[in-house]
């Protein structure tokens, strides 16, 4: 039974406080859905969880061990799906995926894992098609197949359903359910309604703060000018 949690996370991007004082807790088999308006920090939180972005304060922990102590070990137990699909145009779908499968899951049986992942997502016929011929939706599915081709307990999915049709979304729902049954966890940000039974919802709008300078406050005073009353203000997307 693994536990992935974060405490008093503070994220500052481009001099802007994206979210502050954010706590979350996720156990094996759990799912966490991030909601909130554009720019409320859903992507930033996923990147913080992945270790791509360092939180300005607070700590992530895995089974009580601080993630910061072993960033590479943490990277090894998660899969991150961002806005970009990392599909090389000159390589076939199979070559693209086998590279990641080998890098993450070891060389043994990588080919089989890739073939199986492609079949699960219903794109087995694309096996030897070069990446440049793929549509946006197909690239997205190839990226998700990458996640399936090397097992890892934690999935961090940033809007995985963009460019996908209803059937594909159902296929993803099924794989997520399967992953959770096997003790995996999922953090997912999405606009579309996805069917994730017993998922926790984290509304990021609760943690946004008004933009202020790193050198906040007035020159004649020596204090923070944080305005708690403005916490419900939607924040600007940091990119």
């Amino acid at each position, binding site marked *: 039974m693994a536990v992935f949690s974060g405490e*008093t996370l503070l994220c500052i991007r481009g001099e802007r406080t994206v979210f502050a004082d954010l706590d979350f807790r996720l156990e094996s088999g759990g799912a966490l859905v991030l909601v909130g308006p554009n720019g409320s920090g859903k992507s930033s939180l996923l990147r913080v969880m992945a270790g791509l972005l360092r939180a300005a*304060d607070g700590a992530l922990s895995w089974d009580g061990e601080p993630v910061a102590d072993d960033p590479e070990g943490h990277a090894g137990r998660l899969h991150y799906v961002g806005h970009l699909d990392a599909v090389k145009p000159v390589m076939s779908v199979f070559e693209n995926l086998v590279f990641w499968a080998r890098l993450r899951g070891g060389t043994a049986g990588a080919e089989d894992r890739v073939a199986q992942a492609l079949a699960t997502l219903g794109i087995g016929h694309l096996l030897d098609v070069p990446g440049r011929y793929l549509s946006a939706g197909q690239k997205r599915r190839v990226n998700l197949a990458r996640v399936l081709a090397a097992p890892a307990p934690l999935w961090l999915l940033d809007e995985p359903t963009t460019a996908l049709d209803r059937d594909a979304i159902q296929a993803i729902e099924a794989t997520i359910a399967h992953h959770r049954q096997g003790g995996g966890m999922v953090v997912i940000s999405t606009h579309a309604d996805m069917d994730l039974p017993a998922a926790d919802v984290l509304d990021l709008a609760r943690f946004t703060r008004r933009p202020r300078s790193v050198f906040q406050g007035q020159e004649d*005073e020596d*204090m*923070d*000018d*944080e*305005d*708690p009353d403005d916490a419900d203000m939607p924040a600007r997307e940091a990119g």
Partner: protein
Amino acid sequence: MSDFFSMGGYAAFIWPCFGVTAVVLVALLVISQRRLSASRRLLDSLEAAEGPRRPRRAQSAKNGETAGEAQA
């Protein structure tokens, strides 16, 4: 006096050295100072425009919150 300005015949080398040094240093200073004044003016006008929307309230309560945050 003209002896002084002719610098033993090397006036063409010595005076440009001092002149260019003065020009560069003064220019850098003036540019920096003007940028400061421009930023201050802009900040003042922006704060004035924003002022009514952000009344300063309950300073002491905020102070307490800051102290907690700074120690975190």
